[in-house]
């Protein structure tokens, strides 16, 4: 067993877990944070994306023990004071989801993508950056729209226009 500790959504947590436990299972089963999904379980679909020390990673491809000592943010950690994060709000506004299964990973990936492209995003970049996130419902159009809208909003361009 591994004794681990990490900060999840600003809250310090400790646990004693099997060394082989994946981060996604620690989040879902030990912490009850079921917003992070297991889609493919083969590191391809991106439904399990969370942020570890500020970077988007696939939590099904990382041991919980590897994340010990790190700061983890999940989909549950995005909204503040009852207000949706701008990316969550944009997905709602632009109908960037249908069944919703991939959505937590899409939103976490989008937040990371916008952070890495402070100067803004074009459609080609958004589509290329979504390579690690699979959606089987939407055909991606509204997801791309939502991310571009959120990017504009967060960079302040929307207000200026």
């Amino acid at each position: 067993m591994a004794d681990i500790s990490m900060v999840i959504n600003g809250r310090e947590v400790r646990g004693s877990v099997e060394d082989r436990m994946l981060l996604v299972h620690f989040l879902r089963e030990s912490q009850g944070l079921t917003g992070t999904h297991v889609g493919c379980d083969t590191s391809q679909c991106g439904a399990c994306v969370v942020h570890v020390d500020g970077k988007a990673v696939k939590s099904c491809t990382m041991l919980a023990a590897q994340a010990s000592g790190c700061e983890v943010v999940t989909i549950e950690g995005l909204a503040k004071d009852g207000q949706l994060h701008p990316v969550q709000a944009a997905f709602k506004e632009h109908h960037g989801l249908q069944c919703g299964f991939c959505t937590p990973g899409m939103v976490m990936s989008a937040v990371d993508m916008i952070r890495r492209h402070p100067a803004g995003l074009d459609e080609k970049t958004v589509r290329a950056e979504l390579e690690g996130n699979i959606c089987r419902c939407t055909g991606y159009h509204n997801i791309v729209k939502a991310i571009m809208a959120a990017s504009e909003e967060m960079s302040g361009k929307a207000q200026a226009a």
Partner: protein
Amino acid sequence: MYQTTYHRPSSVTEAVKMLGEAEDGKFLAGGQTLIPTMKQRLAAPSDVIDLRHIAEMKGITVNGRDVRIGAGTTHAEVAEHTGLASVCPAICHLASHIGDPHVRHMGTIGGSIANNDPAADYPAAMLALNAMIHTSKRALAADEFFTGLFGTALDEDEIVTAVSFTAPEKAGYAKFPNPASRYALTGVFVANRPEGVRVAVTGAGEDGVFRATAMEDALSRSFDPSALDGITISADGLMSDIHASAEYRANLIVVMAKRAVQAANG
């Protein structure tokens, strides 16, 4: 995944010692191949030794045209490094097309070359750049390091600690990505160096990465895509699978090499 025991060393020496004490241990770099393999129970190491917390294996230094990349450097860090981009943009371009953004945040150059997947991108760059592979025991030329399908010259308890190379005058990488996995269905790295041109091919060879000497000779005479007109690559020894036949890959090698030269010439 079978049971395993997790270890977190803070130095290369400690990591080697931990592996020596393990029954059947494995070094864990970014884990983007090893963890999925363990989940499928295709690998079942008794111990995993996490190399992500070893400071001496991290970072990129660029001194004139001399480049050194710590083995623990992630693909994302290589892709975004401005100093590296100013002397060898081709390797940044290569790193920016490995897997997807999340994989690039975890996967490392050391992990990639130590695994020597026949469709991985970095082995082609190392071979074409005539890189030195530094390990916990020695330094090896890339020509000696890659020894076949998933094969390297590494001993069981040997860790890749860094790679180094002199930035070539020009370099380019072009790959035809598998539409599902983004691994190279065929990828070609070309490097135009004062000593001559080197061309390395990944994704195509049955024995993993290899140099295409006929193309090297042609490009050494004229570093232009047209120098490759009329060159054909034999399908012997190339992979055939549901994605592409050996003959298709043979053709792709020439096409990708031309694109790589074009990219190198800007």
